[in-house]
């Protein structure tokens, strides 16, 4: 439940959303690509109002890549076909072009040798990296990460976070919901702390993590740090 939230994310900025479960951070993220529809209010991406009634939802979603906690790879397709599906069906790329793009992205996430693997043959961390490559294949303007390491054990978490840090360094605009404070500190440009559907506090990572002002932030951080 969101109760009135106002955020703007600059191009190339990495914004980290933190807060207890039920605080509305995932909902906020899912509003951006319209997987959840806000009852009221407006959302703009690159100057286009996506909450407007004349907007075709699936057109807006081309510009927003999303990575999920549960990976949600398509189990009936090999890794490479997971990645080529949308570029071919949505952007009308030929198979050849799409596969070249997919190989480039798999290489970027360090899984070029797994192109022909089925999702169930990959570890959780590998599946999540394929999922990131799949989202990147649409060349989105913003990437949305919804607790992408919560279902992974520590070793796999770092391999996924490394890919995300690399993306951040390349200047990708990212909104990241996570409980990984080390990632927030290292890769985040700004941290937003949410509580009960509102933004309680926001600022640069060093500031918020060291000197939280709001009691709710303090309590949350003392639990996760």
């Amino acid at each position, binding site marked *: 439940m969101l109760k009135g939230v106002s955020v703007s994310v600059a191009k190339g900025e990495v914004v980290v959303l933190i807060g207890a479960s039920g605080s509305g951070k995932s909902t906020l993220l899912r509003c951006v690509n319209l997987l959840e529809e806000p009852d009221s209010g407006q959302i703009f991406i690159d100057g286009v109002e996506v909450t407007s009634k004349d907007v075709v939802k699936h057109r807006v979603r081309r510009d927003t890549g999303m990575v999920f906690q549960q990976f949600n790879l398509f189990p*009936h397709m090999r890794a490479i076909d997971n990645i080529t599906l949308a570029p071919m069906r949505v952007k009308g790329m030929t198979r050849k072009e799409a596969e070249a793009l997919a190989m480039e992205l798999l290489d970027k996430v360090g899984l070029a040798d797994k192109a022909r693997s089925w999702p169930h043959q990959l570890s959780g961390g590998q599946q999540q990296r394929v999922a990131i490559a799949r989202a990147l294949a649409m060349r989105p303007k913003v990437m949305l990460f919804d607790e992408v390491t919560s279902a992974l054990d520590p070793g796999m978490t770092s391999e996924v976070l490394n890919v995300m840090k690399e993306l951040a360094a390349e200047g990708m605009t990212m909104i990241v919901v996570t409980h990984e404070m080390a990632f927030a500190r290292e890769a985040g440009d700004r941290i937003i702390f949410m509580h009960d559907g509102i933004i309680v506090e926001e600022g640069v990572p060093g500031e918020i993590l060291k000197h939280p002002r709001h009691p709710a932030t303090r309590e949350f951080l003392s639990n996760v740090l």
Partner: protein
Amino acid sequence: MTPLLLLFKLFPVRIVLPFLTAQSSINLIINSMPKLLEGAKLSLLVSASSVTAGICLGIIIACARLSKVKLFKSIAGAYVAFVRGTPMIVQIMIVHYGLTEFGLTLPALASGIVALSLNSGAYMGEVFRGGIQSIDIGQTQAGLSLGLTPFQVFRHIVFPQAFRRVIPSMGNEMVTLTKDSSLVSYIGVAELTYRATLIASRTYEYFTMYIGIAIVYFAITYILSLLLARLERRLGPYDQDSESEKVFRRQSGAERRVGVGG
């Protein structure tokens, strides 16, 4: 092979065999073979076309039942409830004789196929609805988040997975429908059961004729289930289940070999 073997063991061979091997019975079966084969062909035609139409109709019904549009939902729901709640023989009668009153007279074969297709459509609809609902919502969300249209998500992501998952229950429905195709003999379609009944009532060899066609029906449905099992194995070994199944089969195969060697 095991179920077939078991069946033969349980089959009252000692009682039945003398009847079937008596010279008169053998002659009767041989003599009526051309007619029975004609009938079997018709039975297969009725079942195959009804199953095909039933699957297509079933997919439409499933989509209607899962649709957000209340009207589609309730029409499909009522349709399924009606088909499930009435005897198939009554449905066949309605299509063949009932519609005549409204000026629509179909030949018996066509009525049979239409009635069976409509019936199968409802059951297949339930099968597909279950299959579609069993696919995790995350799959749909992932598809949508990539910019695919809802139809593309259904066509490329949800449906292929659902289809693989419903093959066993779809197979059940196919077998049931193949057997129920014998009901169209009531409206005079000269299929297997119809012809066997005619010959039996002429020769009084009821036992021979009906055991004979029972074996034919069994052979058809058995082959059908073998084909379906093969289809299930062929359609992408992509989930954990089929993978562990294969490992299991490999292991038990190895054990068997070891057993034979020792």
